[in-house]
């Protein structure tokens, strides 16, 4: 039943999403010219999406729980209880999201070179561990790969990547 609810919840979220976008479509300015108003096509798409979401809701509530398949990872791994169990289950993707988020926040300060190397280094440590000679190997990898790519774009392709406050002073 828990699995069944999962799909039904997604369908309800989709319907809410359609509602928000539909309401927002009234904020679109309508010009006096043109045949297809700027809000018409989005409303058609929202209408189709809402209709499909209703069908999905009906399908998810009428199908048995066994009809909904777990993905391979979920099927092979049992999740621990509570929020800590959820965090443990999603540990690696959450780290990736969080570190990338921090990387983007720190971009104006660290820039793409220092920020990129730091992001890759920390991510490798978090995902692969800090034991043995890994910290040194990870540092070499991060420096060589991101440094190499940064050099290729900066000097080879002439792309101005964000220098950040630190490198920006030089």
């Amino acid at each position, binding site marked *: 039943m828990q699995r069944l609810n*999962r799909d039904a919840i*997604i369908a309800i979220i*989709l319907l809410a999403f359609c509602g928000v*976008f539909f309401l*927002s*479509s009234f904020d*679109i*300015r*309508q*010009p006096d*010219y*043109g*045949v*297809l108003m*700027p*809000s018409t*096509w*989005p409303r058609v798409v*929202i209408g*189709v*999406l809402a209709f*499909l979401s209703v*069908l*999905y809701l009906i*399908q998810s509530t009428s199908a048995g729980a066994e009809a909904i*398949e777990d*993905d391979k*990872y979920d099927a092979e*791994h049992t999740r621990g209880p509570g929020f800590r169990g959820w965090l443990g289950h999603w*540990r*690696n*993707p959450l780290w*990736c*999201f969080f570190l*990338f*988020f921090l*990387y*983007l926040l720190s*971009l104006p300060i660290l820039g*793409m070179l220092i920020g*990129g190397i730091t*992001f*890759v280094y920390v*991510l*490798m440590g978090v*995902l*692969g*561990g800090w034991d043995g000679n890994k910290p040194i190997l990870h540092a070499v990898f*991060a420096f060589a*790969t*991101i440094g190499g*790519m*940064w050099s290729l*774009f900066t000097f080879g*392709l*002439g*792309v*101005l*990547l*964000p220098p950040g406050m630190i490198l920006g002073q030089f």
Partner: protein
Amino acid sequence: MIIENTIAAFVELGNFKTILLMLVGVAGGLIAGAIPGFTIAMAIVLTLPFTFGMPPSMGLATMVSVLVGGLSGGLMAGILTGIPGTPSSVATTFDGFPMARNGEPGLALGIGVWSSFCGGIISAILLMTLAPHLARVGLEFNPWDYFMLVMFALTITASLSGKNMIKGLIAGAVGLLVRTVGEDEAVGMARFNFGNDALLQGFDFIAVLIGLFAFSQLLNDVRDPKIAKKALTERGVVKVRIEHRRAIVEVLKRWTIVVRSSLIGVFTGILPGAGGSIANILAYDQAKKASKHPEKFGTGIADGIIAPESSNNAVEGGALIILMALGIPGDVTAAVMLGALLIHDIIPSPSFITDEPVLAYSIFIAFFIATFMMIGMQSFMLRVFVLVTRVRMYVLASVILGFCGIGVFALHNVTFDLWTLLWFGILGFVMRHFGFPLAPMILGVVLGNIAELNLARALAITSDLSPFVTRPWSLFFLIIAVFSALFPLYVGQREKKKTWTVFFMPVACFAASIPLFMMGGSARTVLAAIVLCFGFYQLWRRWQNGWRFEAEK
């Protein structure tokens, strides 16, 4: 004209820098295709930022090289480790891995490489001959027809991309909605920007593609902490030499399988939504059915390697035919290629081949040259592949995530694109987890503005909606869109022996013949008559079987 354009294309590509970039592209594609968990589309997506500063022909030749390399790379992992490098080389492992285990890995690799080569060459020839003709047909299309073509591409992609058709359609609709964010292209009014100025430009479509496809795929690859810490393959890779001479003999002896499988590949590629993952299984199945010894399939025979490898290399030729002739991407890889064309300010359409003949032929010729390069580089890249397999998945994923960031920023020098990458990476990961296919969403994002612009053009000509059903091409696409949307239901109900399914295919044939008759002209009338006769033939067969399918008798 063809000879002139071909020579001009050779001149365009025949410089040291382009050839070097193509070699690097083939090498990169071979490695990316060989790594289990990495897809060809991902490799091409990651190459996009590098090509931005290049002249169009050079950039596109590099992208085509990555594509050709990636198509052939999957066989290395599949044959040597039993783990297919890409979904399009799944069937290669059925006989390739057993042959390698039987002590002939060099021959298995050789057969795979030369079958890929033959499939690539056959599809390149068809690409060069069919694309200009199809483009001429495309010139007949009006906005109503284009709009319906996009709807057909979306419905068939949704119906072929997963078990649950509704999820596929929802993904496609979300893609269309994502594309509406920002100023609309017809009159320039802000839509769904929620007061955020950065959203006025809309989401950059390349950042969305990289987020949805590459970012979410990498997160999926490192999701399991134990697998993330393992080397790409734990199975030892033996040192092998590709046995080219024996392989060529084996492939030439089975030329009928090569030709049949290549044609299956090309026509699967032409069909929107159906890619190499379908073609290789289909070709393997057909080779097995046509064989005098079907029981030997799966034990390590040459036929079982030739069929999937010829077909999966031929697929992209088919997808490029549709992309270059009509501007409609057939699959995710072609969608990324469309992105590559767009960042070089080239909008594929039926007039593209006539307007930009040198560039169009450069793409054709690059496909040819890259196929030859693939043969030359396969032996060398095999050694690199052995080295790459020692790298741990988490190292590779972390580095590529870092590359994604640099690459996305480099496209337009806009930090907002990096946030787009993150949000769509999360969205792609969540969608994968809940079983929503990403291919329809990507096509929705790519085709969204084409659909809207053509709808606007159609309504600007007349507010009457009847041309959508009275114009032959529009009606044709509408009919096949409806039947392709119903196809998963038909397949499911056919297993339950529902009576109506007996009439599904004949009715589809009758319906499709109507617009073909309406088009007029002798060739199309004959085609319509053939389709109609096929429908009657199917009906007659089922009547003979007591209104049942033949297999049930």
